[in-house]
């Protein structure tokens, strides 16, 4: 039977970062991907954070398929079917090179990244689903089983980069099943418009792009958010809600997306666009408290499979790439020191994570999932109130301003008692500080 230093399961950003780093250091790497080619199973918004990739491929800008750099960020609170309250942040420095954030199209990006992995010397085999982990009698992970004939392959270490469903770890008993409470389901469409139309509608030029993050009653009381991003000649529009909420109501994901598309603040921006793909994917949003065991005898878990997503800042791919790199660097260090890939030695991976932004950020926001779960009105009452308040303030109707302001405040305390307001403010501060 063939044996490799490391087998990487999955060719998303986490698996690619790991395989690339390992192969560059001269370890023998087999990467297995179930898709026809890398990217054909993967969905993202998608914003790429340059920093994480730069640390792996410093000159990635020369060859990576980048759509637009983010020149402007908008945050919108949408009231159902009516109003939009928002903030816009445009900064000329966002448009100076080197750019910090880009929009990408994942199918193209993953194929590009995989090319780099192959160039670095890893063996990449697609169209192959790993069905289970091979263990020795003591429980150490010693390889993987694929669905192919004679499909067992051995390795000194297996990196689980298999994405949000984390099936392999669960089936091997290395972790519990992911929970509906910790997962968001996002649906997305890629819709096409002529480049000039996109640039005039969004007030951008050249490679400039706009990203819009959307909250409010578009999720109909469920914890969730929407987004609208500009690509070169297409737009990505999507909405995601926590599964635990979604299973308790009657709107389909498709209907939620349609609601967002028809919102009067969104509709004119996407008018006439041609839909060319509809997709769906889970996002692990349980945060720090939902993290599984991250390493063991002969195995490490990286990226979405480990639950490394910062839902507040909508970051995932950068945590995926960084954790993939850390996993690889841990193995390279042990190999150079002549140490085996035992659980005790692989604990160094967790220390690298602990010392980095990955764990620091996950810890910082560990209270957020619970906050939003226990107090869903934070996403409902306040956006609606803001919308109402803005409408009142901006409608010129002869009512004295003092009376208006009094009425607006009265509105708010009617929706939420003063104590409730203070409590929300405190919980909010605790969760986000």
């Amino acid at each position, binding site marked *: 039977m063939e044996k490799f230093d490391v087998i990487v399961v999955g060719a998303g950003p986490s698996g690619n970062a790991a395989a690339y780093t390992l192969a560059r250091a001269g370890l023998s790497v087999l990467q297995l991907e*179930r*898709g*026809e080619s890398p*990217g*054909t*199973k*993967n*969905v*993202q918004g*998608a914003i790429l954070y340059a920093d994480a990739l730069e640390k792996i491929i410093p000159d990635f800008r020369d060859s990576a398929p980048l759509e637009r750099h983010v020149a402007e960020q908008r945050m919108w609170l949408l009231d*159902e079917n009516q109003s939009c309250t928002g903030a816009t942040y445009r900064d000329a420095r966002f448009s100076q090179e080197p750019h910090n954030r880009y929009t990408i*199209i*994942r*199918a*193209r990006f*993953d194929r590009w990244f995989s090319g780099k992995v192959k160039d670095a010397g890893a063996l990449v085999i*697609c*169209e*192959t*689903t790993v069905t289970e982990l091979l263990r020795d009698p003591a429980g150490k992970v010693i390889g993987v089983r*694929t*669905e*192919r004939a004679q499909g067992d392959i051995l390795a000194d270490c297996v990196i689980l980069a298999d994405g*949000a*469903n984390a099936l392999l770890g669960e089936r091997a008993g290395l972790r519990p*099943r*992911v*929970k*509906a409470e910790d997962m968001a*389901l996002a*649906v997305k*469409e*890629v819709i096409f418009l002529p480049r000039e139309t996109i640039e005039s509608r969004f007030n951008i030029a050249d490679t400039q792009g706009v990203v819009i993050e959307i909250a409010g*009653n578009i999720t109909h*009381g469920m914890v969730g958010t929407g987004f609208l991003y500009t690509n070169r000649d297409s737009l990505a529009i999507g909405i995601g809600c926590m*599964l635990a*909420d*979604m*299973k*308790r*109501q009657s*709107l*389909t*994901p*498709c*209907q939620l997306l*349609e*609601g967002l598309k028809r919102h009067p603040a969104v509709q004119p921006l996407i008018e006439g666009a041609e*839909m*060319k*793909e*509809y*997709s*769906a*994917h*889970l996002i692990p949003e349980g945060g720090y408290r939902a993290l599984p065991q991250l390493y063991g005898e002969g195995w490490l878990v990286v990226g979405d499979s480990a639950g490394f997503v910062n839902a507040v800042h909508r970051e995932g791919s950068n945590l995926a790439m960084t954790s993939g790199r850390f996993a690889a660097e841990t193995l390279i260090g042990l190999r150079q020191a002549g140490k085996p890939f035992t659980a005790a030695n692989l604990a160094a991976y967790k220390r690298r994570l602990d010392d980095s932004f990955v764990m620091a950020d996950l810890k910082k926001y560990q209270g957020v999932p619970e906050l939003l779960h226990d107090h*869903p*009105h934070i996403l*409902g*009452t306040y956006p609606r109130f803001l919308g109402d308040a803005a409408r009142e303030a901006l409608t010129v109707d002869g009512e004295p301003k003092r009376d208006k302001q009094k009425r607006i405040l009265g509105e708010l305390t009617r929706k939420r008692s003063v104590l409730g307001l203070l409590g929300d403010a405190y919980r909010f501060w605790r969760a986000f500080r």
Partner: protein
Amino acid sequence: MNAPAEFALPKVNVEEKLFQDRYRVDVGKPHIKVRDAGVCASCAAKPCTVCCPAGCWSIDEDGGIDLMVDGCLECGTCRLVCDEGNVDWNYPRGGFGILFKFG
């Protein structure tokens, strides 16, 4: 949920959306199965029929479940929303299933 009742979203035809997607169907080898049809028949809420983004799960005339996985987007939702653990869920064979052009 605090969604106002008066605001109803349009019914959408998910098949029309899926028509834009590319698949390589593993004919006769569905990757998702119901373990016990009786459990579905007596499942009151049937959240799979609401949450599946591809509309693969529907209620048949007898109040049971009709599962058609050809349009499956392989998200994993049906496995997680079923409290009965009644979904036998696997990825399709390598190379089969959804083929995202953009993702």
